[in-house]
């Protein structure tokens, strides 16, 4: 070996060590210098789920060590969370400073001033170095973080509708992922060969089914309301959307109208559906040898749209929101916790640990290891560019129930799609009038 080679090798080795050191030093910078709120105690409540448990079990202790802020954490079943929060807010106990929340429900709390607008905290330099709105995908900022232009949440996961499809069945039939609803219906018909069915999709009468209709509606160029909050979902695009849904479920399993997200997931994972409208969180079960019969035989694509329109998959996500009933110091300390848990460091780690299939940071999507582990990420990244949520309004849940009822009435043939939506629009109008949104 020549002197030059040794010198070059040494240079490379030292550079590598320095580079790695820089890399380690960069992640350690998150609150490495502690926090001005050391000694403060804040309370956290989250819904029960793998990601939130991971935050509580791994990352909150790390946050406590780095900042000196003590966190009292509690996990409750999702169905109990909002009742628990409402009770505490009404009683003004200030029991919880930071909590997991769904951005489509901002309206319920924001109208009563229960959740803290967060824009000012970004300016007060409370967030870790390198943390800022720019780390999130732009569409996530506009949809999940904000309501009416005001930031209320720090995003930790985003749910966007995707189309999972069987690559083996498509290949055999010489098909590529459908781009339009009419293609999807045709392919579903072609690929239906019991016990395998063309498609699995939400059908059960419960909240989450509404996302199917909204996705179809936006994909048909329609809107839920106009700019003055008049319902418009019953107009022609809405009728097309509901008709397409009703036509599609003809090629689903016989009891598709009892399907919630778990049944859609298990139907596709067990190989009983050629396509499925899924949330990203389902993808973990498609790669798990214990639950999946489709390992290596599936991929994800965009949800189709109407001819001449654009796919706008619907969805939501989970954010950390801060109670406005906390003291000023508690709010700031809670913001630091929320910022920490929604940072790139935690976002990437939770994805690599298979605890989160729906990250929010742009950098996570670009990580090569992540792309190898999560097949659906390229489709999800594209979907997030056009992903939409309804404009948040307090009675959104009740409105969603009315729309889901219309879906069911059309699906079982009780009413035509046009009639079902027209009746639903009347009820929605009444709800909006009671809410003093419509005069």
């Amino acid at each position, binding site marked *: 070996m020549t002197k030059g080679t040794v010198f070059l090798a040494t240079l490379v080795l030292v550079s590598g060590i320095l580079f790695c050191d820089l890399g380690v030093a960069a992640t350690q910078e998150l609150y490495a210098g502690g926090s001005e709120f050391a000694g403060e105690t804040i309370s956290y409540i989250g819904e029960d789920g793998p990601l939130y448990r991971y935050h509580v079990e791994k990352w909150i202790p790390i946050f406590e060590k780095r900042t000196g802020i003590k966190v009292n954490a509690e996990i409750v079943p999702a169905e109990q969370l909002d009742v628990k929060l409402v009770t505490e807010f009404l009683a003004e106990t200030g029991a919880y400073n930071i909590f997991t929340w769904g951005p489509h429900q901002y309206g319920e709390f924001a109208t009563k001033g229960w959740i803290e607008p967060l824009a000012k905290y970004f300016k007060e330099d409370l967030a870790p170095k390198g943390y800022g709105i720019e780390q999130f995908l732009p569409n996530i900022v506009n949809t999940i973080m904000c309501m009416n232009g005001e930031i209320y949440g720090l995003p930790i996961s985003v749910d966007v509708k995707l189309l999972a499809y069987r690559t083996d069945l498509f290949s055999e039939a010489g098909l590529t992922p459908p781009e339009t609803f009419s293609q999807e219906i045709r392919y579903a018909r072609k690929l239906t060969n*019991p*016990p395998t069915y063309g498609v699995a999709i939400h059908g059960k009468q419960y909240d989450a089914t509404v996302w199917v209709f909204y996705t179809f509606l936006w994909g048909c160029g329609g809107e839920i309301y106009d700019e003055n909050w008049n319902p418009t979902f019953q107009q022609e695009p809405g009728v097309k959307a509901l008709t397409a849904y009703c036509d599609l479920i003809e090629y689903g399993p*016989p*009891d598709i109208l*009892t399907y919630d997200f778990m049944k859609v997931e298990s139907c596709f994972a067990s190989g009983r559906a050629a396509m499925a409208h899924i949330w990203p969180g389902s993808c973990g079960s498609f790669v798990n040898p214990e639950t999946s019969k489709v390992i290596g035989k599936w991929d994800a694509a965009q949800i189709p749209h109407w001819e001449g329109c654009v796919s706008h998959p619907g969805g939501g996500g989970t954010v950390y929101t801060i109670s406005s009933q906390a003291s000023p110091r508690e709010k700031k300390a809670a913001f630091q916790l929320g910022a920490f848990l929604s940072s790139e460091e935690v976002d990437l780690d939770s994805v690599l640990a298979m605890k989160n299939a729906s990250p929010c940071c742009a950098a996570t999507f670009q990580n090569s290891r992540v792309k190898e582990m999560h097949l659906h990420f390229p489709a999800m990244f594209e979907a997030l560019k056009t992903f939409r949520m309804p404009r948040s309004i307090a009675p959104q849940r009740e409105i969603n129930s009315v729309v889901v*009822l219309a879906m069911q009435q059309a*699906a079982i043939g009780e009413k035509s799609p046009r009639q079902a939506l027209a009746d639903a629009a009347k009820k929605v109008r009444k709800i909006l009038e009671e*809410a003093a949104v419509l005069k």
Partner: protein
Amino acid sequence: MKGFRKFKKTLLPWLFMTPAFLILLVVLAIPIVWTCGLSFYDWSLLYTTEKTFVGFKKYAEILTSPIFWKSLKITMILTVACTFFEFIIGLALALLLNREIRARNIFRGLFLIPMMITPIVVGLQWRWLYDTEYGLINYFVGMIGFSRPNWLINKSWVLPSIIIAETWENCGYVILFLLAGLQSIPQSLYEAAQLDGASRLKRLLNITLPLLKPVILIVLIMRSVVSFRIFALIYTLTGGGPANATKNLAMLTYETGFSYWRIGQAAALAVFMMGVCMFMGIFYIKFIKIER
């Protein structure tokens, strides 16, 4: 000493009952009174934390709401059918288990297992049993040559599906109570009747049922009230669907209060349900005249 004896006789029993009274007051009486009070207020948590007194307006709203009448009809069908089948099947099984049959104790245990399972688990279990393609029920239906109904989607079958699941779950309660009642009936009465030549049916109608009246009354009231407010089973099986075909008053009240946050309206629905349950109790007491 006299004073202590007087205290022991009159006040001491009340002292021992006070903790139970306090608990009943806190978990039962106060919430009931509070709910009754809330039913006279317009309180929609979606928009405001303030309550506005509106008198009987919330009752008028629910009585003029089409979904209320639909839910009431569904509730009454479920209540009558579940109570009837639970009683008939429970009585038949209790009579069977009261006889000297082989492995009687094992059967007694088996029939009581369903009532020990959490309602949510029962719902999930029956969801799979009713699965159109892979459910056990349709497997046997197909085997005997009938077409396989879509139990939880077909509007003709969805209510019977809930009735079957609910009856399966709660027959154990009926068996338990009736069996205890049957075992308290002196055997000498049956022996005497048998000696007089009374048939099995006559013994049932003239000895068993009359002496079981107090127990039957309790069973009917209990089962009616519980069937009136079925929630967990419907929530897991159908969510109130398809298209509100199984949305009973309990589901409607839950949705109104905890999904739509219309607290005043939900309170009015709850008070209405309480009133109907009280009426059912009074009706049974008057109908099944128990001679002292």
